[in-house]
C-alpha cells in the first residue's frame, strides 16, 4: 500500500508540474512569436546546414534586439532532422502542430523540401527555403529565397561557354543521386543541346549520398577531357562528399586551367575542411560571396563573426559567410516586414503581404520578392576559388534577375502558370 500511495502522489505531483509547465509556456507564448528552424545538425548535410541554423538564430537575436516584430519577441524552436528525409516531415509536423510555430525556416536538399511539402500544405504552414534548387515547383506555402536554375546554373554554363570561361565544348554533369542534381542536369542537357552541343559531348555521372571514393570518377573525367575539346565539369555534388571529391581532384592534379569545375552547392563553408591551394581557379556560381565588398556585407560578416565568438562555435575565428546564409538572413527579414505590413502572423495574410517586399541584401543589391511567383529577384555572381578558400568574383549580372521556376528548357513548362495554385 505504501508504494501505491507513493506512486499516486508522484503521479499527481508530476501532472501538476506538467500542467504548471504548460501554463508557463502558454503564458510565454502570448508575448512571443514562435519561429521554427528545421536544419540538419547531424549526418551528411550537417556540413552545410549547421551554419544556416546559426544564421537564423543570429538574425532572430538581431530582430529581437531591435524591438522584435510588432512589439513581440521572436522565440526560436530548433529541431534536428539529422539528414534523414522522412524525419524532416515528422519534425515539421511537430513544429506546426505541437509547437505551433508561425513560420519555419529550413531545409537544404530538395528531397527534404519535397518531404515536408505535404505537411505544410495540409496544415497550411509557411516555409522559407533558403537554398538554390532545380525549380519545377511553385507552392503557395513556400517562399524560395535561393536561386532558381536561371539564376545560377544557366548563367554559370553560359560563362564557361564564353571566351573568358575557356570556351568549353564538352561537359561532364556530375552530381549526387537525388532530385536536385537529376532535374538540374535535365535542364542543363536541354540547354546545352539548344546551344548545339552534341549528345556524345555530354557525360552524366551520379554518386550516392555520402560517397567518399572519387578515384574512378576523376579518372573518367580525365579521359573524357582528353578527347580533343575543352571540357568543363558541372558539379551538383551535395553535402560532405564534396570534401573527398575536392581532395581527390587536388591530389590527381586536375587543374582549373585544364578542366574547370563549377559547383552549385559548394561555398565558403564547404571549403573550410579542404586544402584549397590545389583548387585555385575552380568555380562556383551563387547570388552572394563573402568576398563581395559593400557596407551591408561588411556588417553581415561582422555580425556573424561576433555571433560565432559569442556562441563559441568550433573554429570561431575562421567562420565564413555564404550564399544560403545570406538567403536565410534575407528570408527572415522579409518575413518580419511582411508580418508588420499584414499586422498579423496569420499565414494567408503574410503570404499576401510578401509579394513585392524588398530588402537591401549583403550581395550589394536590393533583393525583391516577386509579386507573383514566390521567388526572389537576385543578382548572379561567378567566383573562382582563391588559395585562402574565398572566391574571386570573375563575372556578374548587371542587376537582379527574375526567377523562372518553370525552366523554359523543359518541354511543357511554357503552359505552366507563374503563380502558385491558391488553396
Amino acid at each position, binding site marked *: 500500500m505504501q508504494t501505491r500511495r507513493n506512486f499516486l502522489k508522484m503521479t499527481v505531483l508530476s501532472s501538476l508540474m506538467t500542467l504548471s509547465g504548460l501554463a508557463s509556456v502558454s503564458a510565454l507564448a502570448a508575448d512571443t512569436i514562435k519561429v521554427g528552424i528545421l536544419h540538419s*545538425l*547531424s*549526418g551528411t548535410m*550537417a*556540413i552545410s546546414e*549547421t551554419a544556416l541554423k546559426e544564421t537564423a538564430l543570429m538574425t532572430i537575436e538581431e530582430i529581437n534586439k531591435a524591438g522584435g516584430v510588432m512589439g513581440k519577441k521572436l522565440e526560436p524552436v530548433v529541431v*534536428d532532422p539529422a539528414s534523414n528525409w522522412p524525419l524532416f516531415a515528422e519534425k515539421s509536423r511537430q513544429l506546426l502542430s505541437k509547437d505551433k510555430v508561425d513560420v519555419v525556416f529550413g531545409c537544404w536538399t530538395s528531397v527534404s523540401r519535397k518531404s515536408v511539402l505535404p505537411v505544410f500544405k495540409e496544415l497550411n504552414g509557411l516555409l522559407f527555403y533558403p537554398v538554390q534548387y532545380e525549380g519545377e515547383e511553385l507552392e503557395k506555402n513556400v517562399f524560395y529565397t535561393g536561386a532558381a536554375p536561371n539564376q545560377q546554373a544557366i548563367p554559370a554554363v553560359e560563362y564557361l561557354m564564353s*571566351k*573568358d*570561361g*575557356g570556351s568549353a565544348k564538352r561537359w561532364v554533369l556530375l552530381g549526387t*543521386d537525388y532530385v536536385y542534381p537529376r532535374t538540374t542536369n535535365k535542364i542543363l542537357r536541354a540547354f546545352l543541346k539548344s546551344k548545339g552541343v552534341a549528345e556524345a559531348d555530354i557525360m552524366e*555521372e*551520379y*554518386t*550516392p549520398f*555520402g*560517397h*567518399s*571514393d572519387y*578515384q*574512378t*570518377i576523376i*579518372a*573518367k573525367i*580525365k*579521359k573524357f*577531357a*582528353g*578527347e*580533343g*575539346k575543352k571540357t568543363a565539369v558541372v558539379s551538383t555534388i551535395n553535402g*560532405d562528399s564534396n*570534401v*573527398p571529391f575536392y*581532395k*581527390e581532384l*587536388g*591530389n*590527381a*592534379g586536375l587543374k*582549373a*586551367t*585544364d578542366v*574547370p569545375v563549377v559547383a552549385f552547392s559548394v561555398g565558403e563553408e564547404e571549403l*573550410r*575542411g579542404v*586544402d584549397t591551394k*590545389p583548387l*585555385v*581557379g575552380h*568555380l562556383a556560381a551563387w547570388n552572394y560571396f563573402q568576398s563581395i*565588398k559593400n557596407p551591408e556585407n561588411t556588417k553581415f560578416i561582422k555580425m556573424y563573426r561576433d555571433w560565432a565568438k559569442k556562441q563559441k562555435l*568550433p573554429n570561431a575565428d575562421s567562420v565564413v559567410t555564404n550564399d544560403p546564409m545570406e538567403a536565410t538572413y534575407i528570408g527572415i527579414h522579409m518575413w518580419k516586414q511582411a508580418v508588420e505590413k499584414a499586422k498579423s502572423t496569420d499565414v494567408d495574410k503574410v503570404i499576401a503581404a510578401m509579394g513585392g517586399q524588398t530588402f537591401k541584401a549583403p550581395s550589394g543589391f536590393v533583393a525583391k520578392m516577386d509579386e507573383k511567383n514566390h521567388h526572389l529577384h537576385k543578382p548572379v555572381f561567378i567566383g*573562382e576559388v*582563391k*588559395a585562402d578558400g574565398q572566391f*574571386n*568574383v*570573375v563575372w556578374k549580372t548587371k542587376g537582379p534577375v527574375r526567377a523562372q521556376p518553370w525552366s523554359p528548357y523543359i518541354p511543357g513548362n511554357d503552359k505552366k502558370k507563374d503563380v502558385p495554385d491558391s488553396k
Partner: protein
Amino acid sequence: MTDIGPTMKRLLLTLLIFFLPASNAFAALDPALVKQLAAEESDDKIAAIQQLGTSASAEAAKVLKAMADDELLVAGEAVFLFDGERAVDAASGAAIEPAPETYESITVNNRVRSELSNALAALKLYDPDRGVRLAAATELQSNAGIGMVPVLAAALAKETDAEIRALLKQAHAQANLANPDVAARLAAVESLAESASPATRGLLLPLLEAANEPDATVREAAAQAVDAIEARLAFGEILGQVFSGLSLGSILLLAALGLAITYGVMGVINMAHGELLMVGAYATYFMQTLFRAYLPEYVDWYLLAAIPVAFLAAALVGMLLERTVIRRLYGRPLETLLATWGLSLILIQAARMLFGAQNVEVANPVWMSGGVEVMAGMVLPWNRIVIIGFTLFVLALMWVLMQKTRLGLFVRAVTQNRPMAGCVGVPTARVDTLAFGLGAGIAGLGGVALSQIANVGPDMGQGYIVDSFLVVVLGGVGQLAGAVWAALGLGVVTKFLEGWSGAVIAKIAVLVIVIVFIQKRPQGLFALKGRFVDN
C-alpha cells in the same frame, strides 16, 4: 622564315637582348603595359602579359608573379605591389608614399591565369638552376600556344640537360601544331607521337578532321600518332583502375581486419565495429589538435603519433565493451547483435556530445598531399599509396601477433577448443578480453587511415559496418587470409564496375554478386579446415 610576323621578330629581338646581361639590370617596365594589366577586358590583360613575358626582365617576372598570386593591386590610377611593408609602383619600382588605404587586387580568371603561368614559365627557362628550368618546362606541357614557338626554340637550342630537352621538345611541338607551315606541323605531329599523355591526344584529335587540318599528310601522321598514344593510354587506364581497386581494397581490408578477429576468430557479431573505427579516427583528430596547439613545427608528423594513440584508444574502448557487456553474452549471437547495436548508438551519441554533431576536419599532412606521376596522364595520389603501405604494415603486425606471440597462440587455442585450452592453463577469460582488445585496436588503426580519405564524423562508422561484414563473410569466417583476398577482390571488382556503369549501379551489382556467391558457397572463399569444438 617568311611566315614570321612582326610580333615574332620582336620576340627574337627581346630574346637577343636577354642574352646581354647589362640590359635587364634596371629595366623599368613600360607603364602603359603595366596599366594594361589592370584593364577591364581579359583580352587586353592577356596581350599585356604576353608582351611583358617576352621582355625577359626580372621586374616583369616579379610583376607577373605578383599578379598570379593576387598581389598586384590597383588603387585609382596606380598599379602597385607591396614590397614588405612598402608600396612600390609596379612599373618604375619607385616607392608610393603614402601607401594607398583602399585598393583591390587585379581580377585573374582561369584564362588569364593560364597565360600568366606560361609567361612565368617561359621567363624561368633560362634560370641557372636545373630544378627551376625543369619545373618551368613541365609547366609548359599544356597550353603552349603558337606565340611560344620562338621562345621555346631558343630555350631548346641552349638547353643541355636531356630531361628538360625532351620536355621542351614536346612543348615546342605542341606550340607548332598551329604553325601555318605544313612541314613544321608535320614534324610537330611526328614528335608528339612519342608522348603518352591524354592532353597530347586531345591536341591531336582535332587534326584528324579536314575542317581543322587542310593537309592530308599531316592528317595521316596525326591519325598514326593518335593510335600510338591510345595504345599506351589504354594500358595506363587499366593500370589506373587496378590501382584504385587496390586502394579501395586496402581501405576495406583495414576496416574489416579488426572484425576478422572479433567476428571471424572469436565469433562475436559486433555491430559496434564501425564505431571502433570512429574512435580511431577521432583519436587522429585529437592528436592533430594537440600537435597544432603544442608542437606546431611538427604538425606534419601528427599522423605517426596518432597510430599508437588510436590503437590504444580503440583497444581500451573495445576491452571495456567486452568486460562489461559482450562477455556476458558469449554463445548467444542474437543478444550480442542487439546489445552491440545498442552500444554503437551509445558510442555515436558520446562522440556527438564530445566533439559535436558536425564532421571535424582532419587535414592530410603535406607529405601525403598531391601525387606522383608514374606515367603520362596517370597520377597516383600519395595518400592512397601511403594507405596501401600502411595496410601491409598492419597486416604484418597482425600476422606476427597471431602467429609468433604467446597471446596469438592462446587466442588460436581458445577459438579451436575452449575447454581444452582452459584445462592446460590458458586463462580463457583474459584471452577473450585481450583478443577483443586487439581486434578493436586494429579497427582503431583502420580509423586512422579512413580519417585521411573520408570524412570524420560521429556516424562515419555506419557506412563501413556493412562493407566490413561483407569482407569477412565473403573471405570465410575464421580466416585472416580470406579477408585479405575478399577485400582486394571486392575493391578491384567495384572499381571496374564503377568505371563501366557508375557508382550507384556498381554498389548494387557488388551486393548482388556477393549474395549469389554466398548462396553457392556459404563457407566463403576459404573454408576453415581442421577439427573444431562447437560450443
